[in-house]
């Protein structure tokens, strides 16, 4: 410890120090970034519209929409807020809770919609409804909150069966037209080849919708009801497939984070029930030379006593952040995307728009690289598209429980019966009561 040599300096010390402290405080405040966003202007007089999106590089629809919007609104630049697809719901939830002022929020599914709208984080966009939207927008009813809409769908995917024509031809099996689920299991067994060149007759992805949403749509059950006996039949199908080795088992698929696309595109799976979004990816993969699988689409298999084709789907929508920096422009964007011009822009790149006119479906099916056979066209005209998961304030909680119990049934930890009864018990205990 050194003692100051001159008293004079020591006396002047604290003053210097206090000034120094002030500077330091200012500096650290600046460094920790207390600035708030909210700048809406650009240097060149253009208005900046910020839109939250996921994995932009793999989701070309966003760029297509942005290009179209910027073209019709020359004074606007769109600034995407790009978020990794897997983290999207959690990240946006956190952003909204933190008071972020991103203008347009892409709502990936109806579970997120119910979460954000019930918390009052989305603005009312009822007056942004495009002309004829009430009639032609598929999936719109999912966003109806007592007559008001807090997001409008621009895209409506639904599920169908993708199949590998070559594998069917080789095995001498007819293409999967009008299959029942039992027939689907039989066909899958016929197409399965064991050994070094393992081919699975079918690949059922690990999402619970593959079982739950199918069951709900085709048996008319309600996934929020707390009564899940209607899942049983679909579980039997799923487990039969798995036990006979005609599909990659759930445990392995989860542990390896199996990608349905890779399995199908490398010819390792003959049939994959999947959403229409996969068509766009397949077209792109074919054009890039990443796959040479000859593929087709068929309607989703049905129950034995079904008289019409029922599938399920999930609309994707745009909402306006309640704390948006440019709320009016954001509404304009929502209207644009849900309307005709937005629909045309995404149809061009192989995405199914929510605004469904026969004209747009025709345009969609005649895209370069889309299968041209009759069965594929038929797959695009299901009689009914049920909502993947009903919307309510309980959606997210119920979703978590169903997901957890689904895993246990699929890895064989619980029998179908036990699993379903614990789903019912837990949903009643933790959510409904």
């Amino acid at each position, binding site marked *: *410890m050194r*003692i*100051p040599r001159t*008293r004079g300096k*020591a*006396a002047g*010390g*604290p003053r210097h*120090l*206090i000034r*120094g*402290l002030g500077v*330091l*405080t200012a500096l*650290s*405040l600046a460094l*920790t970034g207390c600035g708030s966003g909210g700048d809406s202007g650009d240097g060149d007089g253009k208005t900046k519209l910020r839109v939250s999106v996921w994995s932009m590089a793999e989701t070309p629809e966003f760029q297509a929409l942005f290009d179209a919007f910027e073209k019709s609104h020359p004074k606007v630049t769109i600034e995407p807020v790009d978020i990794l697809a897997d983290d999207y*719901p*959690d990240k946006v*939830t*956190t952003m*909204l*809770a933190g008071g972020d002022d991103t203008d347009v929020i892409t709502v990936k599914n109806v579970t997120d919609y119910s*979460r954000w709208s019930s*918390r*009052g*984080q989305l603005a009312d966009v009822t007056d942004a409804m495009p002309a004829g939207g009430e009639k032609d927008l598929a999936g719109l009813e999912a966003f109806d909150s007592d007559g008001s809409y807090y997001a409008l769908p621009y895209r409506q995917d639904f599920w169908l069966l993708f199949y590998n024509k070559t594998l069917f031809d080789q095995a001498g099996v007819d293409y999967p037209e009008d299959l029942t689920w039992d027939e689907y299991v039989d066909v899958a067994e016929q197409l399965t080849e064991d050994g070094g060149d393992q081919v699975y007759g079918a690949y059922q992805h690990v999402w619970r919708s593959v079982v739950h949403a199918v069951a709900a749509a085709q048996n008319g059950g309600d996934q929020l009801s707390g009564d899940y006996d209607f899942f049983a039949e679909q579980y039997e199908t799923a487990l039969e497939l798995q036990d006979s080795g005609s599909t990659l088992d*759930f*445990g*392995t698929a*989860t*542990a*390896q*984070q199996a990608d349905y696309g890779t399995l199908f595109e490398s010819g390792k799976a003959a049939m994959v029930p999947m959403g229409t979004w996969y068509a766009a990816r397949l077209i792109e993969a074919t054009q890039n030379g990443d796959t040479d699988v000859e593929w087709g689409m068929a309607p989703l298999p049905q129950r034995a006593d079904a008289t019409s084709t029922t599938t399920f789907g999930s609309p994707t929508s745009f909402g306006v952040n309640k704390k948006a920096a440019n709320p009016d422009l954001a509404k304009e964007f929502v209207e644009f995307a849900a309307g005709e011009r937005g629909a045309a822009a995404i149809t061009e790149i192989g995405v199914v728009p929510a605004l469904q006119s026969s004209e747009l479906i025709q345009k969609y099916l005649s895209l370069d690289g889309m299968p041209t056979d009759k069965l594929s066209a038929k797959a695009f005209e299901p009689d009914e598209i049920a909502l993947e998961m009903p919307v309510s304030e309980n959606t*997210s*909680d119920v979703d*978590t429980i169903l997901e*957890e*119990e689904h*895993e*246990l049934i699929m*890895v064989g*930890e*619980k029998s179908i019966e036990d699993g379903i009864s614990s789903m019912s018990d*837990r949903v009643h*205990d*933790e959510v409904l009561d």
Partner: protein
Amino acid sequence: MALASPQKTTPAPPGRSSRSVQRRRVRRNTLIGWSFILPNFIGFALFTLVPVGAAFALAFLEWDAASSPEWVGLDNFERMLDDENFQVALTNTLFYAGGHIPLTLVASLALALVLNRKIRGVKFFRTVAFFPYITSLVAVAVVWNMLFNPTSGPVNQGLEALGVSSTPGWTTDTDWAMPAVIITSVWRDMGYYMVLYLAGLQTIPAEYYEAARVDGANAWQRFWHVTLPGLRPTTFFVLVMLTVQSFKILDLIVVMTDGGPGRSTLVLAQLVYREGIRDGDYGYSSAIALVLFAIVLTITVVQFRLNERRDAR
């Protein structure tokens, strides 16, 4: 001592002014000290202290981040008693801590003892042992998931080669998922604590070992009566760090199993995240966090007390 000597040599100034000079000097030193910690402290205050303080208050509120908070008293804590998810998460967290703490302690001590000898290439092996700790956690989780693959993973293939007939399903099995996570985390952390133990080993004077040897103590006796007591401060520190680290486990679980299968690896920190950030129930989430904090605090205080008592002996 250094402080006292100059005071003696300076002629003693008359009472009052001396005290004020002294006081000024103390204040000056304090300010200098503060200025050095200030940058760190501001960061700590903004991102840790304020949120922690807020969590204490939030635990007694109901708040969804959008509407205004509502005072609910102890409701959040009452809800916890009936919440099966909380009980599952608490049990799992205790299971994880019960496996991770002792296993990491033993593994890192063993590694340190082995690598404390003068053998060829010891630096290389020390680096190898430390490597898992600096490897990206996501990479660690993904690779171990592959190793644990029930059908084609090397772990089970190895077990089969050893003649184990019914191999565990690891991350696909509710009973084995947590052991799989524990094994991975022990492997990841042992290198770090090994370094602490290596440092601890250097502080034990060689004379003790010589004396013990002269007295005819064998290797085991030397370890038990010289090494272990000599390492006690290190062990204490490692134990406290491990406890804190084990109870707040989140990252590895999220990447490796995400709480599954079912809820078999759901831990408290994950429940805090789920209830708060994801489901927007910040009050309940903070209450769980508070309970987690109380558990860690209690265990750490007990550890400190035990350590003090032994020190006194």
